[in-house]
């Protein structure tokens, strides 16, 4: 097995490319859904100690709306779509056409819950299908799980698989942003955290040697 510490720059570049393709599709899907232009920042691949993972997204105690997917198939992993509460509210108001959506109603209303879960579903689905096209690996997301909670509590849960073999996580992070002409709105994180065994699978299938 290859652990995060053993990955070279070359390996990270390949993961970045996977993130790039996946997120490109996801951004297109999100723009179609919201009928506005969504820009995608270049994905980053980070090797980070666990306690820094949560700081990456805005500090342990920051409360955010997170949709979690368990990815199953040839290269399993965990996937998160994370919005700040303001972003989640903006998106939900547009998607549901209900200007009354607020912090309280995100979790309590079935309608807003499912709108947010469905957004995640579309993004995860398009991300993973392009990932599958690129690698030939078969991957599918679970149903979406939504929570609004401290980002540290949410993300540490996603680190469990990796924590069994390492104190570091490899995170393929893509930020989706509103088109440059627009002021407010989307600035979300789309995270993919492959399980430890999955790296080997991904590199093998792409014909990339593990020990460069």
């Amino acid at each position, binding site marked *: *097995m290859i652990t995060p510490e053993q990955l070279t720059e070359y390996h990270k570049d390949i993961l970045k490319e996977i993130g790039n393709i996946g997120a490109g599709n996801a951004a297109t899907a999100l723009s179609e859904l919201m009928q506005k232009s969504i820009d995608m920042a270049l994905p980053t691949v980070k090797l980070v100690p*666990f*306690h820094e993972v*949560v700081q990456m997204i805005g500090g*342990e*105690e920051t*409360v955010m709306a997170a949709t*979690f997917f*368990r990815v*199953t198939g040839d290269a399993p992993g965990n996937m998160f779509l994370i919005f700040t509460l303001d972003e989640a509210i903006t998106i939900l108001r547009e998607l549901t056409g209900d200007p009354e959506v607020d912090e309280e109603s995100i*979790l309590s209303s079935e309608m807003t819950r499912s709108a947010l879960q469905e957004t995640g579903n579309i993004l995860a689905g398009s991300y993973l299908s392009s990932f599958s096209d690129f690698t030939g690996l078969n991957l599918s997301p*679970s149903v979406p*799980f939504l*929570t*609004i*909670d*401290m*980002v*540290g*509590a*949410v993300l*540490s*849960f996603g*680190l*469990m*698989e990796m*924590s*069994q*073999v*390492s*104190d570091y996580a490899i995170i393929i992070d893509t930020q989706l942003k509103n088109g440059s002409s627009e002021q407010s709105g989307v600035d979300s994180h789309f995270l993919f955290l492959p399980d*430890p065994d999955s790296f080997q699978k991904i590199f093998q299938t792409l014909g990339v040697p593990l020990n460069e």
Partner: protein
Amino acid sequence: MNKIMQTVNVKISDYQITKAPNRLKTTGLGSCVGIVIFEPGAQVAGMAHVMLPSSELSGDMTFNLAKYADTALPAMVTELVQHFGIQHNRLKAKIAGGAQMFQFTGKSEALRVGPRNITAVKDILQTLSIPVLAEDVGGQNGRTIEFDIENSNLMIRTIHKGMTTI
């Protein structure tokens, strides 16, 4: 002269020991469990933020002791006894965390880690003969906890639920 109170932050997979009037704090406990071990009145306490129940899960030969319940707690107790002169039989514990952040119905054991962490922590404390004086565990929400060594109060902030003290 007044002593200056500091808050000692315990990171994920970490434990810290400090003396009053300092406080111990750890943020964003999800499925992880926060354990405070202290001697009432002794003005010293330790707090651990463990991620996983057992070091047997470790694929590695060398690992961070503070990550696993079964290695973090004995290490912390040994340090309390050897470096701070606390008598083992006077130690007490308070615990919080171990949430099930997502109501997951799949097969992965790793994703059910919250409840497994709680069980492991309680078993290990029992093995160490340390009584659990109070607990706030399980549920579906993240917690931030802060321990006031001077009065042995553990303050817990839970999203959507507010503050409680145990």
